């Protein structure tokens, strides 16, 4: 594959005129995140979404019929409701709000926000419900063509003999369903393998990864204990008995133990790898919801928003180099669009696919060489202050339902920005398909 460089590309458009209608982020909440196939087993992404969205409406004292648009992120479409976004509107009894399901891999949550924001900025909408959900546990398990074709014949066959004949063609080995895999279509490697490559290229050691994982678990544990994270959560009562209620993210290792992190075996490359279950984000079920509004309407209703959307950027990068390096490209672009510097940020929340991806992106953002060769800038993007970075932990600890993560990050980052009374916050993700996204928010 040809080695493309930033220099050859047309420059990305940096600045736009500030939009007429500023987009206010009113509030958000989410279900606790749990390990796939555990507590939420059997709950559809629609049910999870509805739980988060219905509770959000009540918490912000708003009638569920008062938003006029829905954008919902999800990465594993469910055959029975392919347009999850519209189903969320209908499930809340809001038949008037059109709904759209958006998919930008792990940035789907962010995409739902900016899709809604675009309608508001154009003046086509005054208030949108945005968010996302994924339930790995609910994902359809596909059979291979080898099984499906004879079954089709079985359905069409009219006589008993023909039916039996068709059934006989079903290969026994084919009855083992194909497990959902997170293989990149373009490269043929799994996410984990891409992570392993990045560790080697960027020289990120197992120890550094485990140290970062320890930090994110510790922070998430503290934020759970002191109530900062639980305040964002909707208790989920588990059907059909509704006796057990989930009020915390269940995968956070409180008081993490460095030694036990060290003892974990690598999962993607058992021989030479460094990525473990401890320093990677786990397969997760969950949903998050957020309400956004035009500044005008928010003021008219006397609402105090968490903040306003300032600027954002989505980028695509070379999938054959370092797949998860997107934020290193989208961040400088979004900062330019906002006419701000990395230093201006009080809160930075970067999605943690793997500890190695976080450390690689930090390395690149701080690298002069990267800036010059890849970004066509003289200076590095900026130095990351760990006191402002993933303050309440990130996806490695909290979990990562693909479609909901972006929304979770916005909720957490903006709540923290308000606690700190800072001015700017940034949320970014790397995403499958070699993409990056960065959203910048401001208060007042």
């Amino acid at each position, binding site marked *: 594959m040809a080695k493309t460089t930033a220099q050859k590309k047309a420059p990305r458009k940096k600045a736009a005129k500030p939009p007429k209608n500023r987009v206010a982020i009113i509030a958000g909440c989410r279900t606790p995140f749990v390990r796939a196939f555990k507590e939420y087993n059997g709950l559809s992404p629609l049910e999870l979404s509805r739980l988060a969205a219905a509770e959000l409406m*009540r918490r912000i*004292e708003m*009638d569920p019929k008062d938003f006029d648009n829905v954008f919902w992120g999800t990465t594993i479409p469910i055959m029975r409701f392919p347009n999850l976004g519209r189903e969320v509107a209908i*499930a809340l*009894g809001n038949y008037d709000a059109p709904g759209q399901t958006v998919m930008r891999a792990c940035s789907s949550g962010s995409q739902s926000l900016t899709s809604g924001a675009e309608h508001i900025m154009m003046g086509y909408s005054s208030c949108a419900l945005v968010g996302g959900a994924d339930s790995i546990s609910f994902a359809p398990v596909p059979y291979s063509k080898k099984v499906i074709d004879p079954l089709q014949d079985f359905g069409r066959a009219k006589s008993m003999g023909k039916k039996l004949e068709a059934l006989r063609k079903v290969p026994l080995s084919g009855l083992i369903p194909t497990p959902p895999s997170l293989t990149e279509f373009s490269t043929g490697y799994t996410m984990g393998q891409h992570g392993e490559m990045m560790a080697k290229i960027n020289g990120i050691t197992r120890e550094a990864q485990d140290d970062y994982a320890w930090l994110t678990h510790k922070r998430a544990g503290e934020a759970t204990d002191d109530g900062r994270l639980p305040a964002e959560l909707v208790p989920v009562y588990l059907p059909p*008995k*509704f006796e057990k209620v989930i009020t915390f993210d269940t995968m956070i290792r409180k008081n993490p133990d460095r030694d036990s992190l060290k003892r974990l075996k690598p999962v993607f490359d058992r021989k030479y790898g460094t990525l473990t279950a401890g320093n990677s984000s786990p397969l997760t079920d969950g949903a998050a919801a957020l309400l956004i509004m035009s500044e005008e309407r928010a003021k008219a209703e006397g609402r105090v928003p968490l903040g306003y959307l300032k600027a954002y950027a989505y980028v695509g990068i070379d999938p054959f180099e370092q797949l998860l390096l997107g934020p290193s490209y989208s961040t400088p672009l979004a900062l330019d669009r906002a006419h701000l510097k990395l230093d201006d940020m009080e809160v930075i929340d970067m999605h943690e696919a793997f500890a190695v991806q976080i450390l690689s992106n930090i390395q690149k953002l701080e690298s002069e060489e990267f800036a010059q060769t890849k970004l066509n800038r003289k200076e590095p993007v900026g130095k990351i202050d760990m006191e402002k970075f993933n303050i309440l932990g990130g996806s490695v600890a909290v979990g990562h339902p693909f479609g909901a993560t972006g929304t979770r990050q916005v909720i957490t980052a903006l709540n923290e920005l308000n606690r700190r009374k800072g001015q700017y916050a940034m949320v970014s993700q790397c995403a499958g398909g070699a993409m990056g996204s960065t959203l910048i928010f401001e208060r007042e």
Partner: protein
Amino acid sequence: MAKEKKDKKTPFTLEKGKDGVAILTFDLPDESVNKLSSWIMTDLQDKMKLIQEDSSLKGIVFISGKPDNFIVGADIDELSSFSSAKEAEELIDKAHNMLNDLEASKMPVVAAIHGPALGGGLEVALACHYRICSRHKKTSLGLPEVQLGLLPAAGGTQRLPRLIGLQAALDMILTGKNIRPKQALKMGLVDEVVFELDLLTAARTAVLKLAAGKLKPQRPAQKSAYQLATDFNTFFKPKKLIDFALESNPLGRHVVFDQASKMVLKKTAGLYPAPAKILETIKIGLENGMKEGLAAEKKAFAELVMSDVSYQLRNIFFATTSLKKETWNITDNVKPKKLNLIGILGGGFMGAGIATVLASKGYYSRIRDIDPVQIGKAYRYAHDFLYKGVKRKYMQKSEYERKIGSITASTDYTGFKKADLVIEAVFEDIDLKHKVIKETEAVVSKNCIFASNTSSIPITDLAKASKRPENFIGMHFFSPVEKMPLLEIIITKKTSPETTATCVELGRAMGKQVIVVNDGTGFYTSRILGPYAREAAFLLMDGVRMEVIDKAAKQLGFPVGPITLLDEVGIDVVYKVGPVMHKAFGERFAPVPAMERLINDKRYGRKNKRGFYNYQAKKKVPDESVYKLFPEIKLREYPKQKIQDRLLYSFMNEAAMCFEDKILFSVRDGDIGAIFGLGFPPLTGGPFRHMDTLKVENVVKKLEGLEKEFGLRFKPAQILIEMSQKGDTFYPQK
């Protein structure tokens, strides 16, 4: 007959299609629903004769012109206007003639059903040669005559068992239940189920095919033994063979009738004559043929329609009909408020039940309960009720999702700011209620209505904690809310008409019989329950066994006896209400001293599986250890009549006092409240109807006798004494 007006516009229109199919549309002018009455049947018969003479026609589609109903039954007003059994027989003759003609029609007649086809409506459809119904939610088929103490007399007892089989027909006619389209198709009650938009097309097609002899309806109950034995599906449903064995011969049918008689006797306690008549009529028809069956049907109907039981059951029907339009002096310009969100305080049995019914009717609710465990239980309550629809396949999963999703809950008051109405269902304790009233008013908007679901504390006393007494009202639901049909709304002198109108409308939307009463301790229902429950306790103290008391009450027509009722309501609840009533009404309501011992023994009733009855065993049996709490009791035989008098008269006397005290706006409300809230025997028509039947002077005499024997608690109400002197009745007599 007064109803028979010759100048009435014909409700039937005939449209002849080019394909030779005649569409006969029934659309009763100036009415929202189609009903059958004498002149309509004459008219229909004439129309049919005309059609038969038209040789250009191939067949007929019979359809309703109403947007959402086929025919809802016979005109009950007409049934109530007969002065003799002979008049009733004449009407039935007319119906039989018309439907026999219809059935004998040479050209095929297809009934196209959308919306309810009930009673006479279904009987018309049964006389047609083919039935198609829409799969719409509103479409249902049934023969509810038994609920009015009658039987289907337009051939229903004869044609139904022949169409769907004996057991299925008995089930439908004896219970009066409604059948949904899908089920109707399965049992052969209809031949096709289609989308409502296809109804007419499907009916036309069926007529043409039937006329051409290309369509032979396949009805499960009409299959021959050979057909059944060779049917592939029989293999999976062996019950079909058993049914066939039972129903195809007199011996087997005898077994079925025998079983059914036993069931009927158990259910009606021999008090309601209709079910037994139904069995008899069907049996005659099956053993001796259609002609004798129809004659038996006519005779049975004439007897039943003139019976006291049917008269009172029809009175209840009329009362509930007039109740739907009642305004309780609220003028037309007062409009009910729109309710976008309803807050519920307390997620217990009551709160959960209210939220469940609200959800099923499309209202949003927000439960507040400090205990998350209770919230989980409330969700489960709603889930168990709402998910039934998905399990039984008459509700889409998405509809379930929407409904269960309309309930949210919290341990604090978030979400209450937007509430338009808050219903309080916390524990029956005035201080606690005052506390939550104040807390709620601090968060809700100033227009928010506050409704208390107290069962005994006067609303005026509760409203003292409120800054906005005009928005304050009582909504007394009965448990379990999704099953109990009554809602008693209690207004104070300060309650605004808008508040009342809003709650009345909500109650009706929740599917309840709504009565409005004035405030007072125990309002109406709890107050009349008091003396009745106390009398049961006195009977127990007099040495009457618990199950004997209950049985005596059931033989009066109460659905459960007073001892069981105490277990259901909760002995602790009744015990807590006692002193409140005592304070308000004096000696008459003095608590039965021994009741305290039950509370000390932690006997609260079914809720903690410890009451008068033992709920640990599989079958509910009286808990003999109760007697150990009362060593002074000497168990003895006691005349049943005496037990019944003591229970019934204490009940009726208190009802009269409620009317005297102007708690009730009308005796109709009193009858409805007693029947639907407390299970007062429906065959009596309610306590006031019953006193009219017994004659007030006799009631007074009986009460005076009881007073002499048992003391002050049977002192007749002043109003009864006055009425007996004037010879007055509660209702105008016919």
